[in-house]
């Protein structure tokens, strides 16, 4: 029963990742910000997945999505892949400390990790000379992250329950 539950929530999370990835790499003329919203949601799902469903397969999920996002959004492999590797390594190194935090503290950590990941991606793409970030994108990222964070966490909790 427990194993089937675990697989069920894993399947739902993977479907969420696939759907949000697909929408974030496509552009819809009449909804100009929808791909940015799903791009942030994809990152949030990925971080939540790492924090609460950490297992052996997560390395391959991060590797695959890192490569695909780089190819689809930037046409050059580097930015997302590098960020995801750093994210996994940081998680492994700080895992023991994270276990001691309360659920609210972990939620807050997820939020700040999300912001850090998004800004770090912009920074790497700037240093790899792929993209010139500007303040409006940074503000957009912060505002959208703040708006979608609580509903998304609520959704993830429902899935986990």
């Amino acid at each position, binding site marked *: 029963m427990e194993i089937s539950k675990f697989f069920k929530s894993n399947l739902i999370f993977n479907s969420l990742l696939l759907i949000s990835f697909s929408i974030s790499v496509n552009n819809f003329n*009449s909804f100009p910000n929808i791909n940015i919203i799903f791009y942030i949601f994809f990152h949030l799902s990925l971080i939540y997945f790492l924090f609460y469903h950490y297992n052996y397969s997560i390395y391959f999920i991060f590797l695959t999505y890192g490569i695909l996002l780089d190819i*689809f959004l930037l046409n050059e492999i580097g930015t997302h892949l590098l960020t995801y*590797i750093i994210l996994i390594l940081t998680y492994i190194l700080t895992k023991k400390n994270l276990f001691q935090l309360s659920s609210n503290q972990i939620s807050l950590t997820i939020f700040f990790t999300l912001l850090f990941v998004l800004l770090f991606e912009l920074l790497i793409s700037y240093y790899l000379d792929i993209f*010139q970030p500007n303040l409006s994108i940074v503000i957009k990222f912060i505002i959208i992250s703040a708006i979608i964070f609580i509903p998304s966490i609520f959704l993830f909790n429902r899935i986990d329950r």
Partner: protein
Amino acid sequence: MAPKFQVKALTTIKILKNISLISIIIFSFLLIFFTKSDYFIINSIKNISTGVINPITKIISSPFYAISNINIEFKKYQNLKFENKILQEEIIRLKKWQTLAIQNSRENKVLKKLLNATDNNLKLIKTASLINRNDTIYSRLININAGHNENIRENMSAINERGLVGKIIETTSNQSRILLLTDPNFSISIKTVSDDVFSLVSGAGDNRHLVSTFMKENKMPRLGDIVVTSGTAQVFPVDLLIGKINKIDKDRFYILPFVDFNNIDYVQIVTSE
């Protein structure tokens, strides 16, 4: 016996986990290292993702496409009456121009014969339709349904009825990727039609304008000048329409492209003959 076996099994899993993590990190760094060069693995990964994953993402996001299209159609329907009025006026105006154009065309033919002039014709490779767009915050890319099976090669120019759209940056057997003119990584040599001011321009980053990055002899063009490809870099054919100069700053100028990049349905892949 049982606890000892458990400890052994646990350490094996831990070792396997560590090995896979290290190998993934090494693989990732190798990919990042080789991405700028034309290594076989990088190109294969790019081809697979464009050819296989792209259609999957399109299928998954098809409900959003449908909603987006319904929204566009609804807006069009709302504007129908107004557009009809404008079109009626336009028909009357165009009929007058048509008569003039036929006269000019005849005159042109006669003059060409007299001058024995040759045209700088473009060679049309293929007319292709848009599959989907990857133009997000990071880059401006679109995918079309024609690839190297239709003789499309990298660096060929993509145009539509309004002018230059972009250039081919990647081809698979049945698909190609076009880097749009408004991408900040797109650089092109241009000249003005009126007084041949040469300069280099690239995407301004606002998804609308092009901005000058270099001006030959520091000559500044005039506001409203029409800009075409200069053909000097031998990447793009000469005299392809680009846009109009709509803003001039101290040391740079901005071009508004003629092409409406939000409404591209078909593109023609051309090369100079």
